[in-house]
């Protein structure tokens, strides 16, 4: 089943690349699409992109690792991003991040064993009046305090993996 799913992902990516009028300079655009489809950019996807665009794998890897938006590890079902912009920082974002790390027992860039949560720092979403801000999936939590962390996590735990 999983294999079939992967194949359909690859064919979607392939038709996207084929639809590009000008492949020159399109690497970042293609990687955005690939991450959109696969959720992350594992080695096999990078090789595929390199082959389709006719560029060395090392170049693809170089670009993937350069930009913070691209990730080589799968994200959790509920990716948690703690804003580490300056406004959030001076209003206590670092303490929040520590609390998430402690409660989830993972570090930045990691995913929990059950695949539910991944943790990331984020550079300013521009909702500075709500600082400190935490984003889980697409939902924005504003004026988050350390006490709220536990509750927020359990809210999502209750939703489960499916």
């Amino acid at each position: 089943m999983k294999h079939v799913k992967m194949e359909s992902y690859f064919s979607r990516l392939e038709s996207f690349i084929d639809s590009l009028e000008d492949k020159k300079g399109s690497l970042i655009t293609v990687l955005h699409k690939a991450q959109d489809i696969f959720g992350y950019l594992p080695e096999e996807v990078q090789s595929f992109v390199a082959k389709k665009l006719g560029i060395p794998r090392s170049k693809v890897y170089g670009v993937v690792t350069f930009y913070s938006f691209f990730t080589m590890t799968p994200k959790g079902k509920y990716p948690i991003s703690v804003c580490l912009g300056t406004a959030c920082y001076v209003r206590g974002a670092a303490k929040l991040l520590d609390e998430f790390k402690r409660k989830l027992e993972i570090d930045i860039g990691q995913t929990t064993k059950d695949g539910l949560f991944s943790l990331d720092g984020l550079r300013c979403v521009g909702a500075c009046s709500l600082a400190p801000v935490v984003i889980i999936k697409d939902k924005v939590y504003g004026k988050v305090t350390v006490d709220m962390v536990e509750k927020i996590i359990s809210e999502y735990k209750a939703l489960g993996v499916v």
Partner: protein
Amino acid sequence: MSYQRYCLVCNSSKCGHYSKAIADNIKHYLRENNIKDIKVVMTECFGLCKQGPIVKIMPDNIVYSGVKPMDTKEIVEKHLINGEVVSRLVHENKKSKQLKIVLRNCGFIDPENIDDYIEKDGYFALAKALKMSRMDVINEIKLSGLRGRGGGGFPTGLKWEYAYKQNSDQKYVVCNADEGDPGAFMDRSVLEGDPHSVIEGMLICGYAIGSNKGLVYTRAEYPLAVKRLSKAIKDAREYGFLGNNIMGSGFNFDIEIKYGAGAFVCGEETALIRSMEGERGEPTSKPPYPAESGYWDKPTNVNNVETFANVPVIINKGANWFNKIGTEKSKGTKVFALAGKINNVGLIEVPMGITLREIIFDIGGGIKDGKRFKAVQTGGPSGGCLTEKDLDTPIDYDTLLAKGSMMGSGGMIVMDEDDCMVAVAKFYLEFTVDESCGKCTPCRVGNKRLYELLEKVTSGKATFSDLDKIKNLSNVIKDTALCGLGQTAPNPVLSTITNFWDEYVAHVNEKSCPSGQCKELIRYIIDHNKCVGCTACVRVCPVYAISGKVREPHTIDQDKCIKCGACYNTCKFDAIYKK
């Protein structure tokens, strides 16, 4: 019941201390005089906090400042009953501190409706420019004194002229919307609130320098801005403002959106161009400047969102109107994202030359929770801190540079007495270390070493000679790094070490953090005279570091304590203090 008049009482920040008393008194005197058709309404901030408390009578449009509760009788009896203005309280200077040029349409028009923009004279500047000669357009921008709003402050007209003079079959206009400065959201707000103003600015630039292709380089993290900009581009094409033979002039121009992928260095124009070509966003040394050899080695003019948004106004109203606003060398206005420990977090636009005091204590409503102002950081990770002594300096590009900071893109973060300036410097440096592209050694290695030295300071392990090392290394990095990111990375360090030398010394000499922010240097201690032994702290301590019998004073085991502060926040008897 319909009201003839309203008595507006400011209920925000500073005025808020008196507002209830003022409102209650006015209501009392209204009742006493049996007046029923005047209503007292509480309002948000007037942006005149220094002159507060503020009372405004509508529709008379009279503003009273510095109103005390005891003045209310006079206001009611003299003004509201006899219609005679209480002249001693009138706030004469009705001029607002803010002037919206770039934000002229933000929050007023529907950004997804091109007709809303046209109704506000949208695309009239384009029409006007197309009837002018290309060099006349450039001269107008030069005469206006407009300087790049992305941070550097390079004169926009000169930049355009340079690109205009290049001979090439293809030239590009690039809009830098890669707003990477943490704590800044000016460009996003303009793109989300008034995307057509940016498109029109790019069109005028394209006409002037002789380019038919524009690119907007923006952050993938700004989905709404991208959505609204895409809609605006589509509508502009349908109206024929983008495409071929625009408004019958023979000028062709179109715009494409390019996405970044989260790299701060891509705000630097050469790195941005590499990134648009699908490469790692590593900067290249200048010269050659993008105006000679940029995107795909063709002449490329890069300006930021706010710069472009100014252009239509300059063409419409004329350079001589624009250059009357601001200071001698910095014309026009600047948009700032005002954030941090300030009451009125917001997006503001002020004429160049306004003082920090006016921004922070009038528009910003002062410091949150009545704390003391300590510093304001401008220019983000490339900028520096300004302190109390700089509050009355008129701000423009040059004065900020002279003070060891910079205009930057417009992030303005206010800090109060609780913020440790060493930790703030470390925060910014951590950001640049993280964002360094790794191409040149001073930035890749130098900033990392600088960060480690700061880490020594905040953990109480530094010596005096480390402070000297910090200064020396900072200066070496400034002098030798390849691009703007590296060269400016030590600015937050240098500026805090100059302005807050005592704080650095306290970390080194006394191994203490005066603001109690540096975790390694704080100890939480229970005051045995105040502790009642309620055990609340024992229950919240995640590492079981607190011990003691019920109703007897407790103690924290310093070896086990992880300094999370949970006990400190829980104690109801103020028995736990930081040292």
